[in-house]
């Protein structure tokens, strides 16, 4: 009988051990989220913005537009609204599918925030940081789950 009890204890311990091994591998999910964040960020920055309609240089992507703005100086209200229009879709998409998302763009002379930043006591935060141009523009997309 004692052997039987030992066997049962052994099985219980083995089950718990396997359960711990399975549950202690959050790395895959974390990698997936980081990869998704990177992909969405890349696509967002590659989206085209029509800066000067009618000009031969009218079509540039968001990354190029941000670099141009950093050279000019602090962006005006119109430019901020244009950037907001460009990034809102991605922020909304990530919020729907992954979790609360916000974007911080550091233009050197100004720091722009898009999307609702969570208050204190949030869970895990993932970030994808991109230095654009010579590094004077930094775009960081945050995700919390």
């Amino acid at each position, binding site marked *: *009988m004692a052997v039987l009890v030992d*066997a049962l204890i052994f099985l219980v311990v083995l089950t718990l051990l396997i359960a711990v091994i399975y549950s202690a591998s959050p790395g895959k999910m974390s990698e997936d989220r980081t990869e998704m964040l990177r992909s969405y960020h*890349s*696509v967002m920055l590659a989206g*085209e913005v*029509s800066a000067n309609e009618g000009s031969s240089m009218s079509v540039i*992507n968001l990354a190029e537009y941000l670099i141009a703005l950093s050279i000019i100086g602090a962006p005006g209200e119109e430019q901020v609204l244009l950037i907001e229009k460009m990034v809102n879709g991605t922020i909304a*998409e990530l919020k729907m599918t992954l979790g609360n998302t916000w974007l911080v763009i550091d233009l050197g002379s100004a720091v722009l925030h898009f999307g609702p930043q969570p208050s204190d006591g949030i869970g895990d935060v993932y970030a994808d940081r991109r230095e654009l141009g010579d590094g004077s523009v930094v775009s960081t997309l945050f995700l919390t789950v």
Partner: protein
Amino acid sequence: MDCEGVGGFLESILAVMVVITASSIFLVVLASGTMQVEEDIDQEEVISWLISNDLFFKDGVVSLDGPGVGPSLSGLPEGISGMTIVYRPSGNSTPLVVLNQGEPSTGDVLAFQRPLLIELNGSKFPGVMEVRVWR
């Protein structure tokens, strides 16, 4: 078992048999779970198929000729009986193009989405490709 708590020979044999049987059942359950996972649809294989059929580009653009007019879905990956692909702008649930191929789903469906640039009316904007596949 005698008065000193020592099991007899037959009882020991029985206990060992119980242990072996229980361990075998346990291993079979684990193995069947692994086999089930292997039978699931491989998402990366589906993505590779989509790339090879010009339906998705990791660093490229999917061009749409207009709302509802875009790439066509001809054929299916091996072992897949049906597929639905939806292209839509990021943050907007209204589809621009919906592609369907194969029989309606009757069982488990693998669903995933990937961001991509969509070109429509000469403008490239962030979009999402939603894929559903089933066996």
